[in-house]
């Protein structure tokens, strides 16, 4: 373990929670797909991505405390994940749009963190490889759905439009995460816009930053479906206080 000045620790803990909660919550959402995917190969792919994210979550939450206490005993208001990752799966297009937006952001962020010498560099070095795969998977499906049939095009556009307003939050500063947010945002917009256009989709021109959602998840202000997700996730653990599993 690297030694850090004492005054850095709260910020590092806050950052580990924010990044860890993103991975934990999105992993959970992808886990809901098990047994419901449109094709057998996607059962494997979605579970694979969910597992990668859960692995990242476990490392990050362990940097902030006990992974199970943090995952199962915090209330909704104490979670620091982005509102984007808690959005319901809805249909395959929404799942893919959420994945495209988030993995493109994670790829850029972890790339930058991996190149630095901060406390998240070792995790980011490993995670950026997984995230490159996630991003590729989402990109390929965005192209297939956007430039597939009329129905898939309409569904994909709907998903992009519905989730767009949650993307601004990804570029708000996070205490303890040392990254050039404006540069990340520009690179993200460039890459994502290019994928959407190749998929024959329209890049929404509505607000991303400054929308009601921006920055709220990091302050523990979540959307309504999140509480229900936590109720399911935490129920068994909370029913047996102190038990080991």
């Amino acid at each position: 373990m690297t030694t850090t000045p004492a005054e850095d620790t709260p910020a590092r803990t806050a950052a580990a929670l924010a990044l860890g909660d993103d991975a934990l919550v999105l992993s959970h959402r992808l886990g809901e797909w098990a047994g419901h995917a449109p094709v057998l190969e996607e059962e494997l792919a979605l579970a694979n991505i969910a597992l990668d994210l859960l692995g990242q979550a476990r490392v990050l939450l362990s940097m902030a405390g006990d992974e199970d206490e943090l995952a199962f005993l915090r209330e909704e208001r104490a979670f620091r994940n982005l509102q984007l990752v808690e959005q319901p799966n809805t249909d395959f297009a929404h799942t893919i749009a959420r994945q495209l937006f988030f993995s493109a952001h994670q790829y850029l962020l972890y790339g930058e963190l991996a190149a630095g010498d901060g406390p998240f560099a070792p995790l980011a070095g490993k995670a950026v490889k997984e995230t490159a795969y996630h991003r590729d998977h989402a990109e390929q499906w965005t192209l297939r759905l956007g430039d597939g049939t009329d129905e898939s095009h309409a569904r994909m556009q709907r998903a992009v439009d519905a989730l767009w307003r949650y993307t601004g939050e990804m570029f708000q500063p996070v205490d303890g995460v040392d990254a050039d947010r404006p540069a990340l945002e520009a690179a993200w917009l460039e890459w994502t816009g290019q994928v959407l256009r190749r998929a024959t989709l329209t890049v929404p021109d509505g607000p991303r930053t400054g929308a009601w959602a921006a920055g709220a998840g990091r302050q523990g202000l979540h959307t309504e479906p999140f509480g229900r997700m936590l109720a399911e996730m935490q129920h068994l653990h909370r029913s047996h206080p102190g038990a080991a599993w």
Partner: protein
Amino acid sequence: MATAAARDTADSRAFDALTGTDDTAGHQRAFDAAVAADERIEPRDWMPDAYRATLVRQIAQHAHSEIIGMQPEANWITRAPSLRRKAILMAKVQDEAGHGLYLYSAAETLGVSREELLDKLHSGRQKYSSIFNYPTLTWADVGAIGWLVDGAAITNQVPLCRCSYGPYARAMVRVCKEESFHQRQGYELLLALSKGTPEQHAMAQDAVDRWWWPSLMMFGPPDDESQHSAQSMAWKIKRHSNDELRQRFVDICVPQAESLGLTLPDPDLTWNEERGHHDFGTIDWTEFWDVLKGNGPCNEERLTRRRRAHEDGAWVREAAAAHAARHTNSETGATRA
């Protein structure tokens, strides 16, 4: 097939093709000799139609079981009580999807398509293992499935690694490696519960009580009522009888239950010194046939959910096909997957 008998089969096929003759009797002799010599039959080899049909049925049902078998366990992914257990369970369900893929591929070497087999599953014309028609009511069921259901599956499947049909045997080698890992994980999960709080111990015992008999039913009907057994054994698709494998499983489980600190729900279970095996009580065959006929606790729900996943995903598959058709020769890279 690699040896003399095999070459005979291949050569005689080639000879027939060249001369336009039909030497079924000769093919049959070469096939029988290959099976007798414990050689592997491969996709291009001649094989009796009934052998092909039996394999298609068995491999497809095996594949279907992996896919339907994801449901009872996926039921607990979102509720797993620790992140470690959640990761293990997700990995396991992912493995099962992978097993389904291997097995559909093995079946396809016999000249059927995955789509056609899925159709038969969805319309109820092909079956899957009756065990997956039981519900997972508590977290401990995930452990009981790992220990007992995967344990029974391994007992059934290890001999299939030597099955006479090459692609099936090779799929089984890979499947069994992962299954035995799952089985150990299930055992370890139950052990943690058994040694945990009184509530956890009770949860583990209740799960074993509910899953024990259905697991014994996984070996199929008793030998004297098993319609496919004799032929399958002659073809070396099957290596041991249902009752032999069931006995082997009981003998393995009894000491394991003891070290788990759990009991098996069978008052007639006793060691028989003379036979060198455990005697055990009578299976409720009425329940077995009922579940097999579609009247188990979850038959309706499992099949409905599978059909719904397939129907809900139709637009996605159509999109992928339309996109691939349009971009086969372009440089979008979109045809890669």
